[in-house]
């Protein structure tokens, strides 16, 4: 379309439109720098009409071109040196000491650049969002790690304390064995065989106890390291209780303790790991004997429903204060008081019981009062 040929007839309308245009900038200056008129677009760009707003080329630069006609064609940047500016694609004409500036917004370019800027902006906003999310996840992970770390520190402290308690527990029997060993030597030198036999007996029983302690310790640590696998089967409860009682016949007779098991039906079958339950029963029963005086009693009982079985051992023993009860289940605070006949132990047994019951998904607990005896109960989900 050859617009130039047809347009002169419309110049009035075109001028009217250009005067109020927001897209094409028109400004007329008289030389040197007196502004004559400017349209909307130009006034928006340079509100004060100030020629210092010509950043590049400067107004002075345009003035310095003394020719007539088209004196400049290219982008002029308007604005100020301190902020974000704007460029117009301009033709600058000079005629009769006047300068006419016609500036065009390159629409195609603006649209394309706007689109790109928009895409960049969107990309950055999306990135920001995913970074915020990652940051949050990292924060959460860090918090979890902190919690775990604190747990590990606690565990490590526990282990340290445990090692020192253990060393202490082992030192006692060794001191006994060392002392009696020396005396045994002397008695043998003097051929005092009766005394020697007595001392050998003490050494033997100390070795036995120490061996038991080590055995318990080993079981417990294997269980802690998950080396002992939980293998459930159907077990006749009464049978394993009877087996347990048989193991301790000597001690029961020595203290003349009455053991009751009538509460448990012969037919009662529970599901659990046989070796573990036997270990629990053995430990609880041996404790009950230890803390029950001459002619006391120990009673086994069981309560059964479809979801769990609860097995209890009640003794008429010395009982415990609440403080002692609180210390029972803790690795670092566990201690062992001497039995009513001076029996010793290390308190490991209960830790093993707790561990094994928990491997069944069950719970072990105790009710006790000083001089009123104790009831140890554990339940096993069925």
């Amino acid at each position, binding site marked *: 379309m050859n617009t130039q040929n047809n347009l002169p007839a419309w110049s009035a309308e075109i001028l009217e439109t250009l005067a109020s245009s927001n897209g094409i900038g028109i400004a007329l200056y008289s030389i040197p720098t007196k502004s004559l008129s400017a349209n909307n677009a130009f006034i928006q760009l340079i509100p004060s009409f100030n020629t210092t707003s010509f950043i590049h080329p400067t107004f002075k630069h345009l003035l310095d071109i003394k020719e007539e006609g088209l004196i400049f064609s290219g982008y002029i940047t308007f604005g100020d040196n301190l902020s*974000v500016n704007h460029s117009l694609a301009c033709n600058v004409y000079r005629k009769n000491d006047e300068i006419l500036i016609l500036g065009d917004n390159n629409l195609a*370019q603006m649209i394309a650049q706007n689109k790109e800027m928009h895409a960049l902006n969107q990309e950055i906003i999306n990135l920001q969002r995913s970074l915020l999310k990652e940051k949050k996840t990292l924060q959460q992970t860090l918090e979890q790690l902190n919690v775990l770390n604190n747990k590990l520190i606690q565990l490590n402290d526990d282990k340290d304390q445990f090692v020192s308690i253990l060393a202490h527990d082992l030192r006692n029997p060794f001191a006994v064995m060392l002392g009696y060993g020396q005396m045994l030597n002397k008695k043998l030198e003097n051929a005092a065989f009766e005394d020697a036999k007595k001392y050998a007996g003490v050494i033997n029983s100390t070795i036995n106890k120490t061996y038991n302690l080590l055995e318990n310790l080993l079981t417990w640590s294997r269980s802690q390291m998950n080396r002992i696998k939980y293998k459930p089967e159907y077990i006749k409860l009464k049978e394993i209780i009877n087996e347990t009682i048989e193991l301790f016949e000597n001690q029961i007779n020595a203290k003349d303790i009455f053991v009751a098991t009538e509460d448990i039906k012969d037919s009662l079958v529970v599901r659990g790991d046989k070796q573990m339950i036997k270990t629990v029963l053995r430990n609880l029963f041996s404790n009950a004997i230890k803390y029950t005086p001459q002619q006391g009693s120990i009673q086994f009982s069981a309560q059964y429903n479809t979801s769990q079985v609860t097995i209890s051992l009640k003794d008429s023993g010395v009982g415990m204060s609440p403080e002692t009860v609180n210390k029972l289940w803790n690795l670092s605070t566990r201690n062992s008081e001497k039995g009513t006949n001076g029996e010793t132990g290390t308190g490991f047994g209960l830790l093993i019981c707790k561990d094994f019951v928990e491997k069944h998904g069950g719970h072990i607990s105790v009710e006790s009062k000083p001089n009123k005896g104790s009831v140890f109960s554990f339940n096993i989900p069925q």
Partner: protein
Amino acid sequence: MVNDSIHKDYSKEFLDSLLKGNKESCSSIVKQLVEKNIPIPQLYENLIKKSLYDIGDLWESNTISVATEHLASAIIEKILNETYPEILLEQKINKKVIVSCVETELHQIGLKMIADIFELHGWDTYFLGTSTTTGDLIAFAENIHPDVIALSLTLDFNFPLLQRMIEEFHSNFPNIAIIVGGQAFAKNNALVAQLKHCIYLPDIQKTEEFISRF
């Protein structure tokens, strides 16, 4: 620099893509160069800085608009983000630098490169960017206890602002090293001569030398 020739194949295409606003093409060129193990300092000096200087020249000859310059710098900053992980890989050495422009200065790409170079050498870098007031800078330094302050100046008419900033900072922290750089000094030795209490470093290479001596 050594690898100028490598960049020649790329720099024209890179500049064309920047002018067209083709960010994908720009990204992919930089990615290729990174994959070729071109060191970041060379990438910055010989490809990115060079193309921006060319863009400045095109603007100066009234061939392109500020909008084109804006779009190009937005693309460059996006690319700097994309190469940022390459920089963050290095081990930290427990030294700190605060990098900042002079107030009212909007040119931050050169400074960002300098920040990255410090980061590349294991420094903890605090990038304050543009529009930082002297008060902000001093408050920040009180918190961070930096080893070095790096200030950038592009527009020469902002020089008095920089002088005041340095003066005030120095009187608060006489023992913290101040380095300055930027285009305002590039062709203007007279400005360099007026600098006090600080070291002028013209480019990445000199900055790396400074870092290795520090």
